[in-house]
């Protein structure tokens, strides 16, 4: 009869052993909650080894959307954030969660779509006008719908255009996929639809198919990346010294040079901007 009680404690015991065996924490490591764009574009994989070599600090990167990354940090599950949604960042800082925001790099967003371009927006430089045209043509448009920085930008543009896309085309031409940048590009490619992408993810994306850049060069499409530390008055910040060291490295000449040196097929993906904020 005693046996009946044995399996559960035994299971927990074994589970404990398995977890201890699996755990090999780096002596010094921090968790960076970041956007999918800086991770999927390969930027962090390119610059982090230099930082780790110099300082011995390993940076574990969570590739999340900006909204999720800020939430992860607000719950103390990350040590700092690297994100690209100025409005959400201001809220994060105003709520007492973040301090010391510094811009580290910029590039731009682009409107991409099929070569056939049913809404005839190719070659224009006005993203808001392009969205209006897409809406009136009821051409398929893929939205991230994941509260990421790119999603926030898209919604700001619709707001300026005075169109509620979910109301105007939800379930028909406006397709909210609730996914990352890569998933949105795959979906747009598969459905011959328009979408908005950051340039970094676009340049390194390998399944472009019939998609091409149609609208670029609108000041609305500026994309800035900021690093933000957690506010010690609200958070326990056990690794603040390491997180600060990483933030300082990103804006230092070494970090800025590494960011500017990252190229895909000869094209520079991110422009270092710590010295001269845009």
């Amino acid at each position: 009869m005693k046996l009946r009680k044995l399996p559960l404690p035994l299971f927990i015991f074994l589970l404990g052993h398995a977890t201890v065996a699996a755990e090999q924490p780096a002596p010094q490591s921090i968790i960076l909650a970041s956007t999918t764009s800086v991770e999927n574009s390969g930027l962090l994989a390119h610059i982090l080894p230099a930082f780790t070599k110099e300082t011995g600090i390993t940076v574990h990167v969570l590739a999340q959307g900006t909204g999720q990354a800020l939430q992860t940090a607000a719950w103390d599950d990350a040590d700092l954030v690297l994100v690209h949604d100025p409005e959400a960042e201001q809220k994060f800082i105003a709520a007492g969660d973040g301090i010391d925001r510094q811009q580290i790099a910029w590039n731009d967003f682009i409107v991409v779509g099929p070569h056939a371009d049913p809404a005839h927006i190719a070659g224009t430089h006005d993203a808001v006008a392009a969205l209006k045209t897409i809406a009136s043509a009821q051409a398929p448009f893929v939205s991230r719908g994941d509260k990421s920085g790119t999603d926030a930008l898209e919604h700001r543009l619709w707001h300026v255009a005075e169109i509620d896309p979910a109301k105007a085309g939800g379930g028909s031409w406006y397709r909210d996929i609730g996914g990352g940048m890569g998933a949105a590009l795959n979906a747009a490619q598969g459905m011959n639809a328009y979408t908005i992408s950051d340039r970094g993810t676009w340049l390194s994306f390998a399944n472009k198919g019939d998609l091409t850049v149609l609208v670029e060069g609108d000041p609305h499409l500026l994309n800035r990346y900021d690093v933000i530390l957690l506010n010690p008055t609200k958070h326990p910040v056990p690794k603040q010294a390491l997180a600060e060291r990483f933030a300082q490295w990103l804006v230092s000449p070494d970090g800025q040079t590494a960011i500017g040196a990252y190229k895909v097929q000869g094209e520079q993906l991110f422009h270092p901007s710590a010295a001269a904020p845009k």
Partner: protein
Amino acid sequence: MRGGIGDLPISRSPIADPAGECLPRFAPVVVGPALYLMLSRSLALLFTPSAMVIAQALLAAPMIIALAHRAIEEPWQEYGGALRVDGATRLRSIRMLLAIARRSVVTRVLAGFGRTISEVGAVLIVGGNIAGYTRIMTTAIVLKTSEGELGLALGFGLVLIGIGIVVSASAFVLWERR
């Protein structure tokens, strides 16, 4: 096909566990966020391999227990009476039944293994898909797909299938020849 536990004409088998019958139906996608909430605010566990091991164990254990239990139902119906007449202890009965149903138990444990190595929802949520730390075959497949590297994603998938086949084949060779 045989019926469930309730249909057993004789008494319940020694490790009857109705909970084990319904737990496997817990979707991995529920275990993910539930475990995330439990581990959150303790930087030590969330986004570590440990968190992934816990998630996988929580998903696989009930399923394997339930399947193994079903595998020994039949021999229990057949030999249960004899074992009890024989005065066999609980432990000895279980051991005998597992030995009799060995082949089918191994198949079912392998089914649990297959589900574990192909699971992607829960481990992505609690592991975070950190390169070189919590990135595994399935989360790498998701990542490569999102980077548009569909060929590479498919390649990873083939490697994963290969690993599954090798493990299953080894298990059968080891257990069949014992």
